[in-house]
Every structure is written in C-alpha cells, then in structure tokens.
C-alpha cells in the first residue's frame, strides 16, 4: 500500500500486526509503546521525523480505546489525569528545549543515549527489586494465614516512602477520592513534569517513567495508575500530534491503519489486567525499559538509528 504523505510503500498487514502488539502492551501496562512503533516504522523505510510524529498520532487513538475500556472497569482517576496532563505538557516543552540546547552544544546523541540507558536500567532494577519483595511479603503473610490482613489495597515494598511523600503538606492539598489519597498538587505536577521532561528529551510518551512514578511516588494503585496514565497520554499525545502535524511530521494514513490492529490489542490488554495483581503487573513491566535500553545500546554500537 502506498502512503503518499510520507512517500513510502508499506504492507498494511505489517502495520496492523505492529499496532496489535503495541495495543496489548498499552492496554496492559499503560504505556504508549513508542520504543517498538518508532523502530518498526523505521524498518519499513519511514523517515525518522515521520516515524516520531505518526507514532504519536497512533498513540492517541490507541490510548482513547484503552482508556475507555479502563474507565468501564473503574481504573481511571479523571481529576488526577487532568492535573498530570498540565505538568506533562510543561515538561515536554522543557525536554524539547533541553534537546535544542544540547544540539547547539553538539553532543545531543551521546548525552541522550547515556541518560536513556541509566534511566531505563534504573527503573527496571528498582521495579524488579520492589515487586519481588512485595510478592515475597504477600506470600509469607498468606502462608502465616493472615487472611484478615489481605485487603484490596495495592501493597508495595516502597509503601513507607510513598506515605512520607503523601504527608508533605504544601498548599494546595488535593483529595483524590477515586485513588483514595490526599496529596499536594505540587507533588502531582512535579511527577508529571519529570515524566514530560523525559518524554520531550528521550522521545515517545515516557509511560515507562510515569506509570512507576504514579505508583511509587504518588501512591496510586497499579490498576488505576495504568488507566489514568492512558487517559493522560490521550491529552499529552494529542498536543504532540498537533504540534508535529503542523511541522509536517505526521502521516495520518499510516497511523489510521496501525490503529485498526491496536483497537483489538488494547482491548485484550485491558481485560488481561483484571487477572493480575498490582505487584505482578509491575514485575511483568520490568522487560519494557530493558528493551528500550537494548535499542539505545544497539544504535550506539552499530551507528544505525532504528
């Protein structure tokens, strides 16, 4: 199939399959999946600028489907999502400015690559440690027969630190009934800003940073973090899509074809979250940042930008 906007020939079945796989990941983990979509489009000969912009457009569509499904399951905190979107947009602009500054200094690729590898490995190592520790504690408690102790609340080995963060009283304090927490607005904005900063700096939606931060820093239950992250991605990725489309970096026809596969994948991913507890979802999340790190290492060694 010929796509005149980006001037490329791509098999639509390939696009649908890639969309399907990213849809499953998005529905299950609440991530945009740009670390797969970008390289997958590049492999088909799509220019880098079109790969980035088109991927964002496709993320909007996929996240709408997944967020709608999560909402029917009660996994979206709309109030939190709107505050997060504000911080993310600000952070994304900051990240883009940082990239421009590094471009002027002439060492953008080296700095971004090293930062990405450190961040990806850091997230994967921390989540592996935390989720395994939480699962071990849960197992020990269930072995001791402490059934009364088990509640529906999402437990985390990092919980005491999260509670300390929630106790920081900086006006205005926000109550989030859906997530069951009360926290300073500034903490929410800071977490969203950092997520946005990495999104602008490293590219993609940065769900691999935002979803864990929502769980560990804000104390949002994992299922809610996944659903709310997707809702937030709809807003921030829409902003990114419009911005890239104006600059001539979006082939909407490719995005529409990819999205037909993502619709089914996202629904499967959302349904799958119902069968896994929070710590298990977090443990399954660990390979995602590692895949991102592997792609960066590959591009550094081979010199080929995927």
């Amino acid at each position: 199939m010929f796509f005149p906007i980006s001037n490329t020939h791509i098999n639509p079945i390939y696009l649908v399959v890639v969309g399907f796989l990213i849809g499953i990941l998005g529905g299950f983990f609440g991530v945009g999946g740009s670390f797969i979509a970008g390289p997958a489009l590049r492999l088909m000969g799509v220019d880098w600028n079109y790969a980035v912009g088109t991927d964002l457009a496709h993320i909007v569509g996929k996240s709408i489907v997944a967020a709608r499904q999560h909402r029917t399951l009660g996994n979206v905190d709309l109030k939190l999502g709107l505050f997060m979107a504000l911080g993310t947009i600000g952070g994304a602009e900051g990240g883009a400015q940082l990239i421009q500054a590094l471009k002027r200094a002439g060492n953008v690729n080296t700095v971004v690559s090293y930062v990405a590898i450190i961040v990806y490995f850091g997230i994967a190592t921390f989540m592996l440690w935390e989720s395994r520790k939480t699962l071990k504690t849960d197992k020990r408690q269930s072995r001791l027969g402490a059934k009364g102790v088990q509640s529906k609340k999402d437990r985390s080995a990092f919980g005491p630190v999260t509670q300390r963060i929630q106790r920081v009283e900086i006006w205005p304090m926000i109550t989030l009934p859906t997530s069951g927490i009360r926290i300073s607005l500034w903490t929410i904005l800071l977490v969203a800003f950092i997520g946005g900063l990495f999104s602008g700096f490293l590219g993609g939606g940065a769900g691999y940073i935002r979803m864990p931060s929502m769980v560990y820093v804000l104390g949002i239950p994992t299922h809610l973090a996944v659903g709310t992250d997707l809702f937030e991605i709809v807003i921030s990725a829409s902003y990114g899509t419009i911005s890239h489309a104006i600059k001539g970096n979006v082939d909407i026809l490719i995005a529409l074809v990819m999205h037909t596969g993502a619709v089914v994948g996202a629904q499967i991913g959302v349904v799958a979250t119902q069968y896994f507890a929070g710590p298990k979802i977090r443990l399954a999340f660990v390979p995602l940042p590692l895949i991102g790190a592997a792609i960066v290492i590959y591009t550094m060694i081979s010199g080929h930008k995927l």
Partner: protein
Amino acid sequence: MKKGAAKNLRAFVMELVVYAVLVTSYFFLVLHLLGQWLFHLETRHRYIYAAVAILLIAGQAVVLDTVTSLLFRFLRGRRR
C-alpha cells in the same frame, strides 16, 4: 474449564475474522478515497491538516471501539 476456554477461543477467532473483513473494506473504501485529499491538505494547509488528523484518529478510535465492543457482545451473546 477447558471446554469454556475452547469456546472463548473459538468466539475470539470468529470475532477476529469478522473484524478483519470490516477493516479490509475500510482500507479500500475510506483510506483510498481520503488519501489524495489528505496529501493535498498536508502539503498546502498544515493547520487544517493537523486538526483533521487529530479528529480522524480520535473519531476512528471511538467508532472502532464501539464496533468491536458491539461485535464482541453480539457474537458472545449468541454463543451463550
């Protein structure tokens, strides 16, 4: 349990086949017709193209989500 899983898998495969037929018709009817118009917009009217692009992807998301949900409910409902 296994019988239930097999039934679900069969329903899912059937859903995928129906969905594939719908999507293929969609490729040929909608994307083929829209292709040239969108290309023209992208080269000449970038701001309109940006607005149309976001509306198209959001609209497709809502429509396809509704279609697949109805399809899944209809096919699963018939099997029960």
